[in-house]
């Protein structure tokens, strides 16, 4: 039996207090929020951090349902946003104990039951509102990583061009980089639901060392600042293999390590763990789609429709999210080849095999590994670990003029480094041709498109769906730089079937 939270229809109460109370005593815990007019996902995560729990009851569709309402301690103006501050059958916890005529129950008994309810909600780590909060943190973390990497590229670029950097400029860049690392840790803590004191400590320690070096430098002469020592605390990446035992907070020796750890850990926390549990609880749905991806979809609100209760699978007709529909349209474009054999020479085969052996994590990231879409009506975050590469896409196509954005990241591959570089180059060139800001470093591509109209965003998401399919195993076919030109030309001409093979199967 569901527990419902009303958005203000507490007056609608044809059931007696006693009936409602019995429903509560039977342990109704599955939560939705219903006002009688519309159904809204309840911010259950808020239960953990907000102070007040309001209880009451109402009815929907002839079912006696217990209601409760949660509000922030600080939110004094509770009449806002459609939440009724007080109505018959909807009142604060202590007030409820005083007001409700609950047969056979004392105030103490009521408080006890409410406590149990709260504990159960806290114990459920994958509730809807919690997912929303964690997803915001995940987005923020990805964004902090993007900004930090861009800063790092800029810093390294300036140093290699000028071989020196004014002390103040270096100081500012180091601080900005540090701030992004702090944001990453803070957001990781939200995503993973636990503190990371070791990471915080390492960042503080690195910051102090950096400040000391800068202070000594500026006290002497700006030109004497040992830039390489500062950069040495920021830039080197030691945590390269997430499968290695050193890949943990204590293994972070630079700010870049912290950023890398936060990124990997957040992905694991957000997606890889508790998948079965999430599906069982109805938080994620497996999407049936005509491409060889196992896509799990979580809805933040308005992203899915026509869902059958207790059925963990959905198909593309259930997708209401506008950006996700556009991406699916691209992925399933006729001619885009997701499955099948890619022609490669003996050397390529050896390279793929050797590379897979070298990285102990890669066997887990096999073809058809899980992909995750978190959607709302106008928002999409899509993380895909397909084959030996990883891609993330974050997009919003709000109706407000020119507020849409896409952030896209692609990394990895199974072929040799130079072939992976060529595939990254292929992707980067396609994205640039579609007005993205693009940064490519070896096999890593970071791309952004900002302040675009809804239609522009949707057009590019269709293109990205095609690109993800076309690029999937392209690294092994990138024998020469000419191949990059060839594939870019084909893609831009709208010919997606690069090898003349079958369309999606």
């Amino acid at each position, binding site marked *: 039996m569901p527990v419902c939270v009303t958005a203000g229809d507490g007056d609608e109460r044809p059931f007696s207090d006693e009936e409602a109370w019995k429903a509560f005593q039977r342990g109704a815990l599955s939560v939705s929020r219903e006002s009688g007019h519309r159904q809204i996902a309840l911010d259950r995560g808020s239960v953990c951090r907000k102070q007040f729990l309001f209880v009451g009851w109402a009815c929907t569709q002839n079912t006696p349902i217990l209601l409760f309402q949660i509000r*922030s301690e600080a939110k004094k103006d509770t009449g806002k946003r459609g939440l009724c501050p007080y109505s018959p059958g909807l009142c604060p916890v202590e007030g409820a104990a005083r007001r409700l005529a609950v047969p056979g129950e004392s105030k103490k008994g009521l408080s006890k039951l409410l406590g149990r309810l709260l504990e159960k909600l806290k114990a459920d780590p994958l509730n809807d509102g919690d997912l*929303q909060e964690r997803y915001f943190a995940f987005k923020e973390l990805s964004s902090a990583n993007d900004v930090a990497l861009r800063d790092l590229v800029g810093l390294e670029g300036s140093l290699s061009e000028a071989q020196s950097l004014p002390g103040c400029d270096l*100081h500012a860049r180091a601080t900005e980089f540090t*701030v992004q690392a*702090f944001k990453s840790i803070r957001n990781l803590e939200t995503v993973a639901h636990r503190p990371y004191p070791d990471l915080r400590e390492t960042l503080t320690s690195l*910051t102090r060392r950096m400040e000391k070096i800068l202070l000594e430098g500026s006290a002497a002469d700006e030109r004497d600042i040992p830039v390489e020592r500062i950069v040495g605390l920021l830039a080197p990446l030691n945590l390269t293999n997430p499968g290695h035992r050193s890949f943990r907070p204590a293994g972070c020796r630079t700010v870049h390590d912290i950023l890398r750890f936060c990124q990997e850990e957040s992905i694991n926390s957000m997606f890889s763990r508790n998948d079965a549990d999430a599906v069982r609880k109805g938080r994620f749905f497996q999407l049936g789609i005509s491409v060889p991806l196992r896509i799990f979809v979580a809805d933040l609100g308005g992203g899915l429709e026509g869902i059958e209760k207790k059925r963990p699978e959905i198909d593309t007709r259930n997708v209401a999210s506008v950006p996700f529909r556009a991406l699916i349209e691209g992925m399933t474009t006729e001619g885009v080849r997701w499955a099948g054999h890619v022609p490669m020479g003996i050397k390529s085969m050896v390279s793929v095999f050797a590379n897979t052996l070298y990285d102990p994590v890669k066997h887990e990231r096999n073809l058809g590994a899980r992909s995750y879409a978190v959607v709302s009506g106008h928002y999409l975050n899509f993380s895909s670990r397909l084959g030996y590469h990883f891609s993330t896409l974050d997009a919003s196509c709000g109706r407000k003029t020119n507020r849409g954005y896409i952030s896209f990241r692609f990394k990895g591959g199974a072929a040799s480094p130079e072939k992976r570089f060529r595939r990254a180059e292929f992707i980067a060139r396609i994205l640039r041709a579609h007005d993205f800001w693009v940064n490519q470093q070896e096999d890593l591509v970071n791309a952004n498109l*900002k302040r675009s109209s809804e239609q522009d965003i949707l057009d590019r998401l269709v293109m990205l769906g095609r690109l993800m399919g076309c690029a999937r195993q392209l690294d092994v076919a990138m024998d020469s730089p000419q191949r990059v030109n060839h594939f870019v030309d084909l893609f831009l001409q709208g010919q997606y079937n690069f090898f003349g093979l079958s369309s999606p199967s």
Partner: protein
Amino acid sequence: MSNRILLVDTEGELLEALKRGIEAVGFHVEVAGDGGKALELVELVSFDVVILEAWAPETGGLETLARIKQSRPETEVIILTVCESADKALEGMNGGAFDYLLKPCDSETLLERIHRAQEKKEMGE
């Protein structure tokens, strides 16, 4: 969303320039030249975002940040400052700031951070 922003800084010209820039994209902007005035305004009005120069003595620095968060935990604070110290930046972030930006900051970055802070605030409501 109320679209209300409070700017707290001592530099008059900068305040005016920022105010104009932020208002141009549809926000209602109030300004305060010191921490006391900022706290008075925060008590009266529920701002989405406060943009605070936390290292000018007149603005009350981290004390003002703490009191804003105490009085209005749902309001997000972005520190916009000339202080380049990474130590200080971490102090500000540990004090509950949503973000820490260095002056000069381009308007696109500032507006993007304001929108993100608003999104976070809205989610918490």
